[in-house]
């Protein structure tokens, strides 16, 4: 599969935007400006980016507690996301959800989710709706290696398989569920191999190579869209930071951390782009700088936004 200049530069823009968002969130959290739990996607940008580049607006995703990257890659609005992190009433959830619950149903983003694995059946149900409505839409379900051990994984993949639902399950294997390493939480090297239990295709790819992710996702999404049912894609990656901000991640081997930092997906893509002569280093720097500027603007927007008023507690419980 030959990717165009526009595609690769688009990936670069998305990935640097996610990175800039996350590093800013880290900084703001450390400065005590963001309440609650904040789980960052830094290091894993290639996954959301490569997958979501295959999606249209009508398609759906379900995300996780580590959701900023998915949301940005699916087209989520940076300023509304940032305002939500700050708990402002201009935020995506009017300050009611916070980082773990950002959603944009109109963009097909069925929410970050604070419950590990909960997105799996939700994605399955959204795929049932797509199939039933015959609207050509597909669903992508993101989740972690840890979530691959939840019962929801099993029930969802089985259900999607027997009903041939248009859904792609994307296991983001960053090798950790908080402090628990994959080698202690499962006895198989590749989560992708679990696809065999459901009679669906499963493939493991280098999750730090956005092109590999894009290609695997393209195939799976095409399969889903053409009515040939679900797939499982495992993307091997690494989270650069602690589980949540504030976690010093003492359980990580510093050597392994260092080795993975060298596999950072962003410089890797930059090198590829430069090699292909799609852009110069300076042009890439400009993309990064623009991303940072967009994030700065979002922070300004958030900080200038009103905080909710106490009575807002009572609204939005029920639809009329």
């Amino acid at each position: 599969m030959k990717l165009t200049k526009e595609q690769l530069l688009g990936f670069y823009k998305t990935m640097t935007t996610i990175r800039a968002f996350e590093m800013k969130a880290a900084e703001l959290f450390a400065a005590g400006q963001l309440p609650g739990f904040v789980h960052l996607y830094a290091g894993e940008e290639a996954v959301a980016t490569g997958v979501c580049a295959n999606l249209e607006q009508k398609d759906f995703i379900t995300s996780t507690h580590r959701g900023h990257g998915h949301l940005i890659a699916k087209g989520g609005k940076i300023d509304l996301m940032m305002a939500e992190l700050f708990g402002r009433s201009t935020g995506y959830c009017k300050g009611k959800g916070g980082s773990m619950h950002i959603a944009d149903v109109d963009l097909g983003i069925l929410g970050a989710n604070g419950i590990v694995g909960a997105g799996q059946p939700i994605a399955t149900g959204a795929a049932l709706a797509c199939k039933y409505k015959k609207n050509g839409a597909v669903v992508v379900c993101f989740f972690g290696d840890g979530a691959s051990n939840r019962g929801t994984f099993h029930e969802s993949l089985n259900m999607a398989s027997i009903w041939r639902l248009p859904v792609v399950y994307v296991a983001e294997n960053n090798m950790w569920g908080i402090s628990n390493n994959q080698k202690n939480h499962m006895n198989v090297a590749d989560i992708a191999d679990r696809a065999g239990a459901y009679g669906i295709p499963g493939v493991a790819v280098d999750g730090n190579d956005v092109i590999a992710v894009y290609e695997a996702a393209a195939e799976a999404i095409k399969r889903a869209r053409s009515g040939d049912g679900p797939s499982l894609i495992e993307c091997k990656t690494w989270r650069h930071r602690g589980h949540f901000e504030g976690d010093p991640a003492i359980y990580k081997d510093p050597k392994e951390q260092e080795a993975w930092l060298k596999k950072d997906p962003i410089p890797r893509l930059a090198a590829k782009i430069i090699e292909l002569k799609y852009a110069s280093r300076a042009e890439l720097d400009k993309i990064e700088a623009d991303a940072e500027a967009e994030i700065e603007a979002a922070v300004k927007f958030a900080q200038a936004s009103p905080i909710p008023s106490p009575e807002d507690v009572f609204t939005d419980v029920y639809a009329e």
Partner: protein
Amino acid sequence: MKQMTYAEAIRDGMRVEMKRDPNVLLYGEDVGIFGGCFGVTAGLFEEFGPERVIDTPISETAIAGSAVGAAAAGLRPIAEIMFIDFMGVCMDEILNQAAKMRYMFGGKAKLPMVVRTPCGAGMSAAAQHSQSLEAWFTHIPGLKVVMPSTPADGKGLMAAAIRDDNPVIFIEHKQLLAVPGEVPEGEYVVPLGKADVKREGSDVTIIAWSWMVQKALAAAEALAAEGISAEILDPRTLVPLDKEAILKSVGKTNKLVIVHEAVKTGGFGAEIAALVCEEGFDLLDAPIKRVTAPDTPIPFAPVLEGAYLPNEEKIIKAVHDLF
């Protein structure tokens, strides 16, 4: 009006709504050609076909969770959980997804979904197939909780539940399924949140729901013979709860007995008692009595299950205690 059983009436409610709105579909374990474990969905598979009446694997977590996703993506699913006892298997989906999605998203999602499930003892099905767990769902803001006691209510509340844009837990009592009654034909909607006086009375208010309405009505008959006039109030939906109707009835009778089949501690009867004690204290001239199952699991042997269940005599005794 047509004579139908409770099961037929609920099925008719689903059928009419499925005809009315192609986005309504029904799925669960053995709801297809088997017609559901208790026959409530019989014939719907034949009528609506395998795309709209779908047998699922034994995967309650995925059943409930997928209903959330399907509803968020534009359908109006009816998911059946074969026994309310199995709701523990999908409580996260109910508690943390269905009930909270709209709020967490700042009001930007609608979840028009119904989870149908049968409750109740009386068939020696023992501790894991006989429970009444409605109180749990009332303690989860974001859900509505419906418990019809008659065929007509079953049909009309089902229609309302399907049309509602919120997740509704619709609890059918196994002992009522074969009970007949007059039911309006065609489209028929009983609004959620409106209690129904199943019998007027002036001396004591008995609040009961689901199967216990029948027990309360029987008790009221017997009490009438002794000259005690009992009003039977059926809230029909526990959430939203018709507080006005409750306070109005207690205001009239000044005495309250609450009857439910669930175990006593933490049952929804406590909520009603607390409500009346908080907002209608001056209306009361006697303690509020609760007639409920005891705080034990549900035993198997008929004699034990009989001793376990609230019944006419226990209700009468509670009323006598107030006079």
